[in-house]
């Protein structure tokens, strides 16, 4: 048992592992631009043939290239029901001008998240409406939630047409056009994590913690060396 071999074993695992995690951290992944923060608790809108549902106006907190919504082929999902119809999604300005659109084919049955990849990106700061329409026979359930009595979701505008329970909203997740790696997302992530924290916390805090986390690897090597030295010296003392 030597300090050198112990620290080398530590360093080999640490360096190889960090390289592996670093590579994994650069793999592009879908990343959220912003969310309406409405949970998909139940199908709140039934889209019948040629029916529609619009949510807005919404201020785009960040640019996005696709929108995820939760759909089912009926308001009462069951494996025995007919598959859901194709759905067309449009992002438009409050005046009705279409900004971007996407369509998903039919065939879905159970409730699940469907990703509408838009034909164009939508820039941050735009005020938009998001509308869903069926473009085929059959009905679809669009999932969302109704807030508690007397409450309303903020930044979601309203749901039209108005024949839905009070203050109901569709669950929509807005996704960046280009996939981003976890490492590339860190500056934005730390900025987001700094909100709703104690006053002294900023995104700098998370950079410092990241540095501290990396520094623990150096400290780990030191701890191993200290332990080996201590045990070797104890063995010598007892010999």
């Amino acid at each position, binding site marked *: 048992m030597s300090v050198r071999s112990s620290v080398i074993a530590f360093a080999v695992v640490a360096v190889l592992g960090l390289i592996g995690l670093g590579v994994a*951290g650069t793999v592009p992944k879908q990343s959220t631009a912003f969310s309406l923060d409405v949970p998909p608790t139940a199908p709140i809108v039934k889209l019948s043939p040629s029916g529609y549902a619009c949510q807005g106006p919404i201020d785009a907190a960040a640019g996005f290239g696709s929108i995820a919504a939760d759909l089912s082929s009926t308001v009462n999902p069951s494996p025995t029901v007919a598959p859901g119809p194709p759905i067309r999604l449009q992002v438009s300005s409050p005046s009705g001008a279409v900004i971007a659109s996407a369509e998903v084919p039919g065939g879905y049955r159970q409730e699940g998240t469907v990703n509408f990849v838009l034909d164009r990106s939508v820039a941050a700061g735009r005020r938009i409406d998001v509308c869903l329409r069926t473009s085929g026979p059959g009905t679809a359930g669009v999932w969302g939630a109704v807030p508690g009595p007397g409450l309303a979701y903020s*930044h979601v505008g309203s749901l039209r047409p108005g024949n839905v329970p009070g203050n109901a909203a569709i669950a929509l997740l807005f996704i960046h056009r280009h996939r981003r790696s976890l490492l590339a997302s860190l500056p934005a992530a730390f900025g987001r994590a700094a909100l709703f924290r104690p006053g002294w916390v900023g995104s700098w805090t998370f950079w410092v913690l990241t540095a501290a986390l990396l520094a623990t690897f150096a400290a780990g090597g030191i701890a191993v060396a200290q332990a080996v030295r201590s045990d070797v010296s*104890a063995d010598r003392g007892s010999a």
Partner: protein
Amino acid sequence: MAVASGNAESAELTPGAGAGAPRGRTGRLSRARLAVPGPLATLLVIVVAVGLAWALLVPPWQSPDELNHFAYAQSLAERFALPGDPHRGIYSTDEVLGARAVGASTLSFWPKEVKPDWSVQDYRSYLAEARQDPSRSDGGGANPVAYEPPLFYLYSDLAYWATYPGNVFDRYYAMRIWGVSLLVLTVLGTWLLIGEAIGRRRLPQLAGSAVVGLLPMEAFISTSINPDALMIVLWTLAFWLGTRVVKYAARTGDVLALCAATAAAVLTQPTSYALVPASALALVLGWVRSERRERRARARALVLGALTVAIPVVAWHGFAASQGNPLVANVAAAPGVRPRPFNVRQFLSYVWQFYLPRLPFQSRQRATPGLPLYEVWLRGGWGKFGWLDVSMPSWVYLMTTVFTAAIAAASAWIIARFRDPLRLSLFAFYAVGMLALLFGLHLTEFRSFLDYQGTFLQGRYILPLIGLFGLAVALVVSRLPVRAVGAVCGALLAAMLLLQVIALGTIVGAYYT
């Protein structure tokens, strides 16, 4: 059978361990022994850094039942009263304002579809509202965690009071950061436990304590506002103190300290009644091991110790009853539902199916997919975050399962070769603690099924045994060939640090990207 306390060296689970370490013959603390060893000091620095990252990175109230636990702590801090008043709301306006602003309740159940509020504008709006000084004392109503004893909340409230002028996020995160101290104490307790059971060999102590301090679920729960955090510390300390009681033949100081730790554990979480049989066994084993001429004096210590447990616990029972608070978690059938009767065969079948594949003739006892041993204890025990729906990549659990299985098999192989009474006594003490906790947990879940309620068990519920897991790791490391010990310990510490990076990266990915 009786062994004088001067023969305590033979108690160590590894022959020859501890040689050369400064140790009094009676095991009493000396100045040299109180000095913090270098590897421990360095490990504690690492654990503090990791703990701070967990405390600050996890979004507000995104740990199991944290809204309720915060409400309990706030009721104590603001009104010096337990929650449970049916005429009040559960949560204060102060907490509701903060929780609504960040979308805490919604995020708890839909972390994939909903994100914590990322809006700077919303945060500013919250700050403006918080400046109106929303009421902090209008909570304290019928809280689902009102059955919990108050010890953890009082500890946590020290941070609440220290940051009293701030808004709810200042106080909430101060409480979480204060939880880092519990993580540190758990690591310290594990280090002491290993030192007492195996001997003061720094590499096994470092390996076992590092696995405990860097286990992601342990870091997550310790820095959450949750009484489990303090319970884990107290169980770990109780295992250390019980080891001393057995090893040094029930000296008065050790007996009183063990009983105090047991009482504190019970006053932290009712689950800790499961610690009582193990503590009682340690006291009996320690007394039996004492010299005949000392037995009368040690019996007096045992009586004093029993009173140390009984008086505060009985006092708490009386006080809680006077407040109309339940004493244990409410696992009961819904109103109007008639629970099924308890059946021993069904219970044994349920336990079998938890740990082993269901046999063809057994009726299904648990409706969850997969083997519960893996899904609940192994995946959940190593790390499922948020409200248990934020998981690390699957391959991580595969590796941690292989590691856990290897440690379990190797330590079982080593223990099976124990022959001397002291080692067997220590093993009996640990085994009773472990089995009593598992029995209590399984009984509670089985009762929940009988009452037509859902599953009850979560991986975090076995964290009170984490000190024993650290001890098992240290035991295996201590038996490795001398040439390999340092390298294995080094590789293990590096792997645990990498696991922390993965776990914290999972939190970032789940909530902030």
